[in-house]
């Protein structure tokens, strides 16, 4: 019932009726919302929210057949497609807001309007070549040398290096942040610093060189070492920097992360329930 056969006449009539019904509903909804008092409006919104969320909740809990589906499962795909369409429409709105802001900067010659000119020129140029490229890929337009060179220049020679450059800034910022933050100011700060240093040196080749080449610690654990866990060789094996780093990541980091993720997951579920039942006043 959620998928319509648009090839048949009945299907086409069905689609037309649905589109008309939505138009009537939408056009009718605006005057109704204006006439209703605020409490009525909130009640209507809460009702729509509840039924929209109920589809997903019911689909999850409803018993399934041997194929792992129930009668609501085919509705999920179209619902998710609808969300994608809304996101695409919102993108148009966001882009409009961006262009409007910068055009206004240029027209009114506000402070630093030169950057707005750069943005508009870059936006138009990249947008032009991207649309042309997509149409050429689909065979609507031809793939000319100008397109190939232009798109290649903009994408491979500008966009890719620019994005990589921004990501590489993180390396430099880490350096200044670590230099500033990792100081022995308190017990917690000291633990943070030593742990970070252990992991930083343990996960890279330098940790291997220090532990296995300079200090000559065992690289692998033999059966004999397993039998004598407190032997010097076994202790040495476990004190190698890479093993300490791996232990910190596996035995300290992972359990803490699980704990935080439990809390975040439960809190997210609680918030979703509040939004679904319109108990959350928040931004509404």
């Amino acid at each position: 019932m959620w998928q319509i056969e648009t090839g048949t006449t009945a299907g086409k009539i069905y689609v037309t009726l649905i589109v008309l019904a939505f138009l009537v509903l939408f056009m009718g909804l605006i005057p109704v919302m204006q006439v209703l008092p605020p409490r009525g409006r909130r009640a209507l919104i809460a009702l729509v929210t509840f039924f929209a969320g109920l589809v997903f909740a019911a689909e999850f809990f409803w018993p399934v057949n041997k194929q792992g589906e129930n009668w609501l499962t085919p509705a999920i795909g179209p619902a998710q497609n609808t969300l994608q369409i809304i996101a695409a429409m919102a993108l148009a709105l966001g882009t409009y807001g961006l262009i409007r802001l910068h055009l206004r900067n240029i027209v009114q010659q506000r402070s630093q309007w030169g950057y707005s000119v750069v943005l508009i020129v870059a936006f138009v140029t990249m947008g032009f070549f991207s649309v042309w490229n997509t149409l050429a890929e689909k065979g609507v337009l031809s793939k000319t040398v100008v397109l190939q060179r232009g798109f290649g220049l903009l994408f491979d020679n500008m966009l890719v290096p620019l994005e990589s450059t921004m990501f590489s800034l993180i390396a430099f910022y880490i350096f200044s942040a670590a230099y500033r933050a990792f100081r022995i100011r308190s017990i917690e700060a000291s633990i943070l610093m030593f742990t970070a240093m252990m992991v930083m040196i343990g996960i890279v080749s330098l940790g291997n060189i220090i532990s296995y080449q300079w200090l000559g610690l065992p690289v692998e654990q033999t059966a004999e070492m397993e039998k004598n866990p407190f032997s010097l060789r076994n202790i040495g094996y476990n004190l190698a920097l890479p093993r300490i780093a791996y232990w910190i990541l596996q035995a300290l980091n992972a359990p803490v992360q699980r704990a935080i993720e439990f809390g975040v997951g439960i809190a997210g579920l609680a918030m979703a329930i509040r939004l679904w039942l319109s108990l959350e006043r928040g931004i509404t």
Partner: protein
Amino acid sequence: MEKQTIWHRLLMIDRRILYLILFVNIIIFLLLPVKVSTVTSPPVRRFYDTIEQLKPGDMVMVSSNWSAGTIGENRPQLEAVIRHLMRKKVRFTVISFEPQARDISFRFVSRVTEEGGYQYGKDWAHFGFLPALVGGIKGMVKDLPATIKQDIKGTPIAQLPVMQGVKTLADYKMVIDVTPAGTVAAWIAYRPKDLIVLFCPTSVMAAEAYTFLDSGQVAGMLTGAIGAQEYEQLLQREGLGTPFAKAISFSHALIILFIILGNVALFMSRRAQGG
């Protein structure tokens, strides 16, 4: 005015000087022909061993979601993975859930597979960009050709020789997620039960995956360029991971040196203030 000691100056050092030192350090160790070997970490060893268990003709899904920003970490990983898959003579398909990743991964994998003698359509294919990750995975679990419909070149999926006998995601042996984002949780949650998941994140995102490694939900992991270096060592084929990891290695050493210097400066300046 109080005289500024060298320790005070060190504490207040202009960050641009720090950036310059790091920049020079990276350039030197990128270009220096120093061979630095490494010991394979357990997650990389598990990654390698899992792929080694594949048989010729098996199907593998490569989910490539990285774009230009993380090219330094994800590209060496993807290259090493593709070369290993070609060595094992498995069939693979590539998919992207990020628009820019579609073009980058297609062009990159095309180049690597050409070098390895793989033919597009017969040995591998690219499914293009799929907008919704969770919806896409769920759709592929149910009916892959109906979800993907056509490959990046516009050919219907069912017509591709590489897709012979493949109806759903359950017909794949494993999925390898090469990504800078947290997409692996969706693969773990919605995949068919027997589909093995391998993970190639950037170093920043790797910390999140240790819980999945512990529980076995992720069979193996390559952590950024360092993981790529270890993997290249196992494959005995040096790619970009090795020089990048070398530069990272010495950068870490530099950062640790400056952390120690900063603490010494703090201690000495406090001493100077105290008398």
